[in-house]
C-alpha cells in the first residue's frame, strides 16, 4: 500500500510537468495547427534563467518573474521572426521551423549560460512529508498546486474573457473567426506567449526536484508530445489527463514491472491506446467532408 502510494506521488509529480508541456503544445496547435517542438526549451529557459538570476543575487520571486518574461519574449520572438514570415507554408514546414528554433535556443543557452547541471533551493524546505508510509517533498506539492492553478487560470481565461473566446473561435474555425473580425495573427502570438509562460513556470517549479541544464528541453518536449497525443492533440483536458497518465505509467512500470523497461512499457501503452483510439483519449474525430 505505502509502495503504491509512493509510486503515485512520483508519477503525479513527473506527470504534472508532462501535462504542462502538453498544454503548451495544445494551445499553439489549436491556434495554428503547428506542433511547436521548441516547447521544451521554454521549460529549460524557465529553470536556467531563474538559476542564473538567483546566482546574480536576485530574490527567488523576482528571478522567477524575469525567467517567465524571458520565456514569453522568446515565444513572441519565435512567432514574430520564424512563424509569421512563413505564414502560408504548410503545417509540416512550420513544425520543422520550430525544430530549428529549438536547436537554436538550446545552442544559445549553452553559450549564454553553461553546460553544467544546476539546482535551485526548494521553495519551502526540503523536509519530506510522510503520508501513510510514503513520502512526498513539499516541492512536489508546489508542482501539483502550480499545475492545477495554471489549468484553472487557463480555463477561466478561455471561458470567461473575450480574448479567450477569440482564441477558442480561432481554434474552431480560423476562416470564420477572421470573417467575424478576430485578429488571428494576434491570437497566434498570444498562444505562443502563453505557451512560453506555462513552460517557464513548469521549469521553475520542477528545477528544485529534477535539476536543470541547457539540454533538458529535448526530452521534456518528447514526453509532453507523447502526453498530448495520448490525451488527444488539441484538447486541453486531454493534455492534462495524458500528462498525468504518462507520468503514472512510467512510475508504476518502474515500480511494479521493471525499471529497465519502464519507458518501453509506457510507450507500448500509448501505442495500444492510439491503435484503438487514433485521435487519442479526448481527441475530436477528424471528419473530412467531400
Amino acid at each position, binding site marked *: 500500500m505505502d509502495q503504491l502510494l509512493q*509510486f503515485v506521488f*512520483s508519477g503525479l509529480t513527473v506527470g504534472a510537468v508532462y501535462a504542462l508541456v502538453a498544454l503548451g503544445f495544445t494551445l499553439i496547435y489549436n491556434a495554428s495547427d503547428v506542433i511547436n517542438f521548441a516547447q521544451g526549451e521554454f521549460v529549460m529557459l524557465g529553470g536556467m534563467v531563474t538559476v542564473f538570476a538567483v546566482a546574480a543575487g536576485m530574490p527567488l520571486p523576482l528571478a522567477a518573474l524575469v525567467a517567465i518574461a524571458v520565456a514569453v519574449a522568446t515565444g513572441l520572438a519565435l512567432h514574430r521572426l520564424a512563424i509569421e514570415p512563413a505564414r502560408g507554408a504548410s503545417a509540416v514546414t512550420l513544425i520543422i521551423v520550430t525544430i530549428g528554433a529549438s536547436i537554436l535556443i538550446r545552442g544559445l543557452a549553452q553559450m549564454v549560460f553553461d*553546460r553544467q547541471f544546476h539546482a535551485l533551493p526548494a521553495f519551502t524546505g*526540503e523536509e*519530506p512529508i510522510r503520508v501513510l508510509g510514503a513520502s512526498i517533498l513539499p516541492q512536489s506539492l508546489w508542482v501539483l498546486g502550480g499545475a492545477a492553478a495554471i489549468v484553472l487560470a487557463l480555463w477561466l481565461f478561455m471561458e470567461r474573457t473575450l480574448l479567450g473566446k477569440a482564441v477558442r473561435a480561432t481554434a474552431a474555425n480560423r476562416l470564420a473567426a477572421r470573417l467575424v473580425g478576430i485578429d488571428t495573427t494576434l491570437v497566434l502570438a498570444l498562444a505562443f506567449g502563453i505557451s512560453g509562460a506555462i513552460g517557464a513556470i513548469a521549469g521553475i517549479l*520542477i528545477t528544485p*526536484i529534477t535539476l536543470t541544464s541547457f539540454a533538458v528541453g529535448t526530452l521534456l518536449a518528447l514526453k509532453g508530445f507523447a502526453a498530448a497525443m495520448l490525451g488527444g492533440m488539441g484538447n486541453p483536458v486531454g493534455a492534462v489527463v495524458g500528462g498525468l497518465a504518462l507520468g503514472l505509467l512510467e512510475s508504476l512500470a518502474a*515500480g511494479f514491472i521493471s525499471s529497465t523497461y*519502464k519507458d518501453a512499457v509506457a510507450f507500448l501503452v500509448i501505442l495500444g491506446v492510439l491503435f484503438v483510439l487514433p485521435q487519442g483519449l479526448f481527441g475530436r474525430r477528424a471528419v473530412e467532408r467531400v
Partner: protein
Amino acid sequence: MSRRLFAALLVGAAALTFGPSPAGAQAPIRIGAVLSVTGPASFLGDPEARTLRLYIDRINQAGGVLGRRLELVLYDDGGDANRARTFATRLVEDDRVVAMVGGTTTGTTMAMIPVFEEARIPFISLAGGIEIIEPVKPFTFKTPHTDKMACEKIFEDLRKRGLTRVGLISGTGGFGASMRTQCLRVAPAFGITIVADERYGPGDTDMTPQLTRIRNAPGGVQAVVNADFGQGPAIVTRNFAQLGLGVPLYQSHGVASRSFIELAGPAAEGVRLPAAALLVAEQLPDSDPQKRVVMEYKQLYESTQNQPVSTFGGHAYDGLMILIEAIRRAGSTDGVRIRDAVRQTRGFIGTGGVVNMSETDHMGLDLSAFRMIEIRNGTWRLLD
C-alpha cells in the same frame, strides 16, 4: 591546426625567453593526443588538454627530453569515435608521432587502438573502461582506475562494516552499465549479495520508484550502491534522502567533483565513494607517498589555470609522466623500445596511485590507489 600552431608559438616564445638551449638543436620529439575537449565529455577532455599543454611547456623549459624539445600534436574529437579514429590515422601517417597520450572516453579509445597497434606506437589512454587493457594489447596502456576497482573498493568497505545485502541502482549509460556488470561479477568474491538491481535512463528525473523497490527488497537491504556519473547520482542521492532509507549510500568515482556536492545539497551528507588521492590532497598524511606529487600538481594546475583541479586532468599528468620517464629510460624514440620501457614502470608515483606495470598489467594500479571518501559538512573527508 591552430592548436598546433599555438603550441609551436608557445615553445618558440619559451625558447626566445630562456635563450639558446641545447633542446633547440635537434628535431623535436612529437607526442600525439586526441582528446574530447568539446562535446559531452568536455568536463573530462578539457582538464586533460590543459594538463598536457602545461607540463609539456614546463618540460621544454627544463631542457626537454634526451636533449630534444617535446612537441604536442593535439586534436579535439568532440567525443566522436569516428573523428578520433581519423585523427589517430593522421597522427601516425602525417604527424609521425613517437607516442600517444589520450583518448578521453572508452569509446574513442577503442576506436583508436587498432591504428596504434598496427603502427606499433605506444598508446596511453585516459579512459576508464576495463576492456582497454583486458585482454592486454601489446602497445596499449591506461592510467585511470577501472570501474571494477571501484566496485571492489566499495565492497571491501562494506565488508569492513559487516554489511552484505546490497541494493544496486545504475544508469543505463555506458559508464553505469559497465560498472553494473563489474559489480555483479565481483560481488560474490566479497561475500556480497545483490538483493535488488534497478536501473534508470539518462534523462530520468525521479528515481523514487526504483529506490522504493530497493527498500522493499525481500529480506531487507543494508546498503545501496549507485553506479553512474553526471546528474543521475545527484537525483538518486536526493530521492534517497527523501525516502529516508536509513542505510549507507555509496556512489562511484564518477561523481568525484565539486558539482555533485552542490547538486545533491544536504542529501549528500554521509555519502561514501572511492576516489583518487588528488580529491583530498591536503588531508593526506605527510607520510603518504602520493602527498608531494598530488600537492605539486594541484598547486601548479590551480595557479596557472584558474580553476579547481580534477582527477581527470590528473590522469593526463600520470600518462604523460609515465611516457616521459619511459623515453628517458629507453634513451630512444623507437616505438618498441618505448613500449618496453613503459611496461617496466615500477613504483611510479602519480596522482592516481602508485603504478607498477608488467607484461600482463597495462594499468599497474591496485586497490590502494583508491581512497574511501565520505562527504561531511559539504566537503570530502578521507576515511582511510
